[in-house]
């Protein structure tokens, strides 16, 4: 039965079932790898160029070394994901390192995420602008540029590469700002397609490069020795004016290598995305995580590592850095063996792929930043103001606005300079990796819970485990991060400034929120009793089959709950009030904790719902589920609870038909066994649209019933058919219809049905693939003002 409640009486608090397992469609390791590679693979488009500007022609060897080292960093992330912890990066790092270092860690991670967007957007712009200019040059060479245009540009037409990149980067960021404000879900399908296209490009690039090397020979890549290092003017940062700078390699051979390594770490940026997809991986989770991780590591090693070598081997020194430093893959395409038109076409393909993969990285950056800031806001480290949902779309738009504002500011401040952005980005990358590995190292001793896998080797000394492997990775990361502090002055200034600002905001917010959160915690303890459940089922809620599920989101629009309470006798039929806690795909590394799922917002929402139920003197059961897709969450919950009806308010951004269509689609995607149910969408004016979800007996018009009856009468007069039933007539008619539809008459049937559809709008299918309508609006129950919900079940179990 429904839970009883009397707010304010500690012994009888409102019971709320909090499902802790996210309701989502799990993805295969291939898709997970594709999502991460969209971020990690994008580094291949700019990392080598930045490294060569900093350390000279032997940079590819350092890129290769970084890519090999990325295998070990990936192992740290696998260990981090294999721990059964909830609560987000801040909470996990706080447990290991304490509040101050946790805030610093999150600040570095934010710097990393926020910089991912600008560097990807601007880099994509560099590729596009570079192509435009080269096309102009080619056209001009052939005399195909009109004289007037030539005169207008005082020579060959061209665009300003850096400012074009700024405009492009800004436009892509604004586009994804709007997508994220609307809450458009990132699709793993799209990521997979992008990676398939990228793979085609990589295979062509490597194959064609091999032919070029055979036909034209190659220029050797200087070995990564101290003497071959040629540090650029800005590559020594604060050391530039010191005595050390004069002969770094001779005095401190290994330090030179370390500095060069530090200038190449950008190549493994995006590795942190592995943690973002962990939650979504299909069973067996750990095995699939490891598979995804190995695919990612091998792919990025081949793509980023080998192409870095090919740049130096194939592109002449005279143009590699001066012309193509910011779009090296495009440069490589132009210096492959073969006719120019083919090379130009391949370059265009490279630009398209670059646009796709780099734009994807911009979106991943916004989603990742939004996820991290949401978690820290839930932990009271950022004001709750940021988490207020968008009045129309329900997204945390203020956080999205903040992230996008910072990204746009960065794009403008960089003025399209990829090297500047890369230097700054490297700060976030290396420090977020360092903090993560340090946290994992400390958690080896502090965390006693379940852990699926550990970075090898681990040596036992006097009964104590020494994490040799993990400590080694941490040492490399820490030494590189410290050296970068001195050699990347620009990154240090920007990174420290940014991280310090965020750290300050976090610290002040935490202090300001401490009292408020203590009160909220007290309110939670006094008024609510959270019952944690891994999965949603009837026994957890103590309800009967055929119950009614009422979905709630905004505490200002609970009219549909009132409507349901007015009409349902809760002695006969239970009511479950459900709120789905949406987190976007890839928005968090760890599952949410119970307190995060049932946050202050949910407290307010359920307090209102309880007050309304009390005013009717009726009982309701309360349920919160974490979900990625609200429609799948509703369908799965209705299915698990054996609900006969779902009652929702009218969405502010969709029509009732669209809402039912989305539910129908989620129902079709849900696994078997699944039950049909009725959906009632209550409008603000109390009008109600009713739809049936799943296959069901259709409403038959009276003239059709008469037709069936007349046919039955005629047929039963035939000899031997006197025992025929009405349903036999329908079965025969449907069988013939199916045969005709599958045969030559398909087009005739569709033409006739199209004519009919316009006349019977009320009975049209509103979902499915056309063959299998998942939701249907009933003639007899559509938009009736006072029709109650099905009571007891309209669609029985």
């Amino acid at each position: 039965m429904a839970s009883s409640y009397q707010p304010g009486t500690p012994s009888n608090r409102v019971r709320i079932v909090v499902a802790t397992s996210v309701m989502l469609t799990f993805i295969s390791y291939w898709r997970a790898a594709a999502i991460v590679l969209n971020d990690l693979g994008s580094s291949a488009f700019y990392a080598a160029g930045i490294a060569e500007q900093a350390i000279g022609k032997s940079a590819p060897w350092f890129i290769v070394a970084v890519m090999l080292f990325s295998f070990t960093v990936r192992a740290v992330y696998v260990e981090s994901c294999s721990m059964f912890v909830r609560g987000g990066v801040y909470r996990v790092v706080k447990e290991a390192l304490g509040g101050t270092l946790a805030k610093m860690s999150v600040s570095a991670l934010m710097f990393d995420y926020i910089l991912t967007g600008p560097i990807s957007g601007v880099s994509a712009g560099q590729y596009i602008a570079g192509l435009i200019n080269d096309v102009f040059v080619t056209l001009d060479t052939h005399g195909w540029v009109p004289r007037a245009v030539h005169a207008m540009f005082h020579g060959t037409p061209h665009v300003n590469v850096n400012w074009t990149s700024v405009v492009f980067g800004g436009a892509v960021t604004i586009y994804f700002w709007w997508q994220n404000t609307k809450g458009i879900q990132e699709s793993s399908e799209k990521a997979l397609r992008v990676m398939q296209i990228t793979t085609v490009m990589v295979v062509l690039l490597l194959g064609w490069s091999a032919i070029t090397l055979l036909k034209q020979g190659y220029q050797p890549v200087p070995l990564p020795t101290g003497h071959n290092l040629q540090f650029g003017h800005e590559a020594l940062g604060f050391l530039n004016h010191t005595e050390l700078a004069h002969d770094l390699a001779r005095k401190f051979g290994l330090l030179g290598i370390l500095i060069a390594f530090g200038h190449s770490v950008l190549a493994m940026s995006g590795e942190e995305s592995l943690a973002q997809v962990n939650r979504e991986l299909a069973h067996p989770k750990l095995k699939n995580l490891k598979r995804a991780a190995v695919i990612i590591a091998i792919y990025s090693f081949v793509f980023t590592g080998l192409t870095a070598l090919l740049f130096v081997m194939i592109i002449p020194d005279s143009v590699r850095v001066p012309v193509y430093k910011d779009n090296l893959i495009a440069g490589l395409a132009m210096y492959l063996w073969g006719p120019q038109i083919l090379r130009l076409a391949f370059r265009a393909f490279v630009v398209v792929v670059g646009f796709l993969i780099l734009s994807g990285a911009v979106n991943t950056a916004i989603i990742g930043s939004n996820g991290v800031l949401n978690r820290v806001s839930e932990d009271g480290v950022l004001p709750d103001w940021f988490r207020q949902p968008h009045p129309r779309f329900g997204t945390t738009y203020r956080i999205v606005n903040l992230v996008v504002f910072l990204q746009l500011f960065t794009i403008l401040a960089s003025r399209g300079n990829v090297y500047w952005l890369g230097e700054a980005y490297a700060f976030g990358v290396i420090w977020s990796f360092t903090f993560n590995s340090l946290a994992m190292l400390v958690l080896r001793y502090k965390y006693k819970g379940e852990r699926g896998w550990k970075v090898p080797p681990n040596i036992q000394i006097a009964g104590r485990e020494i994490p040799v492997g993990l400590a080694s990775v941490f040492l490399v990361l820490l030494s590189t991060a410290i050296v970068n502090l001195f050699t990347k002055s620009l990154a240090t200034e920007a990174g420290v400034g940014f991280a310090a600002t965020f750290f300050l905001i976090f610290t002040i917010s935490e202090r300001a929120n401490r009292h408020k959160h203590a009160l909220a915690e007290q309110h939670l303890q006094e008024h609510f009793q959270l019952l944690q459940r891994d999965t949603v089922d009837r026994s957890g809620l103590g309800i009967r089959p055929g119950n009614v599920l009422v979905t709630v989101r905004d505490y200002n629009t609970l009219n549909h709950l009132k409507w349901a309470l007015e009409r349902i006798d809760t002695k006969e039929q239970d009511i479950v009030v459900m709120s789905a806690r949406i987190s976007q795909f890839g928005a968090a590394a760890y599952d949410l904790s119970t307190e995060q799922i049932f946050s202050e917002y949910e407290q307010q929402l359920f307090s209102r719902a309880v007050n309304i139920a009390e005013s009717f003197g009726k009982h309701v059961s309360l349920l919160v589920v974490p979900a990625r897709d609200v429609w799948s969450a509703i369908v799965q919950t209705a299915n698990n609870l054996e609900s006969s009806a779902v009652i929702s308010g009218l969405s502010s951004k969709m029509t009732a038909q669209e809402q039912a269509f989305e539910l129908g689609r989620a129902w079709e995607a849900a696994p078997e066994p699944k039950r049909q149910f009725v959906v009632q969408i209550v409008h603000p004016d109390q009008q109600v649209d009713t739809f049936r979800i799943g296959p069901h007996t259709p409403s038959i018009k009276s003239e059709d019933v008469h037709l069936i009856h007349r046919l039955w009468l005629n047929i039963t007069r035939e000899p031997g058919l006197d025992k025929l039933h009405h349903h036999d007539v329908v079965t025969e008619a449907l069988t013939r219809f199916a045969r005709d539809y599958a045969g030559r008459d398909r087009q005739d049937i569709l033409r006739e049905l199209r004519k009919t559809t316009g006349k019977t709008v009320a009975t049209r299918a509103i979902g499915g693939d056309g063959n299998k309508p998942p939701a249907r609006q009933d003639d007899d129950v559509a938009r009736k003002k006072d029709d109650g919900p099905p009571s007891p079940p309209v669609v029985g179990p």
Partner: protein
Amino acid sequence: MILVIIGIRLLEGMFAIGAIGSFIVLVLTGIEDFETLIGSGDSTHTEESAI
């Protein structure tokens, strides 16, 4: 200056020890990765929906 040199040597030492250890991690995880890839036949390539 001595402190700077000590600091540099310390960083170099950390980097060198870490690099050797990381190489061991690379070899050990590489072996495990190989086994993971070999045993990929029983994996789930299709999407599943579940709670």
